């Protein structure tokens, strides 16, 4: 039985933005990743737990507007998607590594907005499709907001299977600059994560 989190509170605005830096810092890690054979596909996604309160819905709407503005300025496609488990995803970017920095900034904008409105606990994870040298299929680089750590996720087939061996190998290739999740019991899956590149027209899908 896993234990509930002991510290659910945000630490105040400044503290929270510091906590979120590992996502922003991912951009700085990209050269190290590439040196180790891992390259961003170009898409970035963030997963947020939905809530039916007016405050949350307002924030989600403001997020949409902020992203719309950012996407317009930077020619960055984005899309808001829902899943069956009560979570909303915002996906930014194209299948083009050159958009990765903007895509990461886009989802950082999403996260920051939720933090500002005291919804830090609703942020679950960020996810980044990554290509691996010599592999046919990409994998998902998952960032867990609670643990503030990264780990790989390689779904296989349709029966919710993972390629654990490949995940372990990829983890071995993580550069030191990327904070990795050492406890493999915490490498939770993100089944059927809606990480396809948004429609080519920037804006809400």
């Amino acid at each position: 039985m896993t234990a509930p989190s002991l510290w659910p509170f945000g630490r105040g605005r400044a503290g929270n933005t510091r906590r979120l830096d590992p996502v922003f810092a991912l951009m700085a890690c990209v050269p190290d990743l590439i040196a180790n054979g891992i390259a961003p596909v170009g898409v970035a996604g963030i997963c947020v737990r939905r809530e039916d309160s007016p405050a949350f819905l307002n924030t989600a709407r403001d997020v949409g507007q902020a992203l719309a503005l950012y996407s317009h300025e930077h020619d960055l496609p984005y899309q808001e998607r829902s899943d069956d488990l009560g979570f909303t995803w915002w996906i930014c970017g194209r299948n083009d590594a050159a958009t990765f920095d903007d895509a990461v900034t886009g989802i950082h904008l999403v996260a920051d907005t939720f933090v500002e409105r005291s919804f830090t606990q609703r942020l679950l994870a960020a996810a980044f499709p990554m290509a691996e040298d010599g592999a046919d299929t990409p994998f998902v680089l998952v960032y867990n907001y609670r643990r503030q750590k990264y780990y790989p996720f390689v779904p296989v087939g349709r029966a919710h299977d993972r390629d654990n061996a490949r995940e372990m190998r990829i983890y071995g290739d993580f550069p030191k600059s990327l904070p990795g999740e050492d406890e493999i019991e915490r490498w939770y899956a993100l089944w059927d994560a809606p990480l396809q590149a948004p429609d080519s027209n920037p804006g809400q899908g």
Partner: protein
Amino acid sequence: MVLSMALLGVVYAIFLAILANAGFGFQFLVIIAVGLLLAQYYFSDRLVLASMRARIVTERQAPDLYAMVARVAQLANVPMPKVAISPTMSPNAFATGRSPSHAVVCVTQGIRDRLDPNELEAVLAHEISHVRNRDMMIITFVSFFATAASLIVQNGFWFLGGGFGGGGRRRGGNNLALVWLISIAVWVVSFFLIRAVSRYREYAADRGSGILTGQPALLMSALTKIADTAKRIPNRDLRQTEALSAFMIFPAVSSNSMMELLSTHPSLEHRLEKLRALERELR
């Protein structure tokens, strides 16, 4: 185990007394917490099965598995539980359901492929021991107050400042802060006690399996076969993990609602040690 439960009982009794004394929206809290408890109690099995993409199977669909479960259930003197299979190749097994007459035992395709029939039977005996011992109900019950405490802690202002019943507003901020602090303490303490209780339930189910099969070595072999390092990578979705349970209307879809064969605690080594001791005992 008795000590943990007694300590938990004391903690909760103190908690309730303080809540009642503070006279804040106690009724509202109770309604919410009882609501969650009932929801978890009644819907947990369906939600858990859905989250593992498991399907209930009939005797015709899986005759060997069904017969095995039936045999163990009869040995354990519990009603025949429903049998479910999860298609994933990661080996695992779990039991869920609010009482022995509403139980489901689920195995993954991975564990069916991986283990010999005898070992699988030992695993089923472990899960059915959980059913017989009513572990689901026990864990749900002990989690109840922890959930209530966590609700207070995380939604403190809503409960304590909002005028739902009681004389909360009149008594002023000090009482509310005190209750809030007490809730944190309750939460922390119950965190550790719940872990102790659930660890004990796992040992008890292992023991139950050893006694039902008469051969603890079978369960030892099964656990060893499937608990190698790579398989410790969880199959559960991040969106369904415990940390969010306080926010979910049905905290059911968390590890609270099922007794999983491969849990993080207790460690495999400790479980094997106890099974070895049981083997010596039975000889």
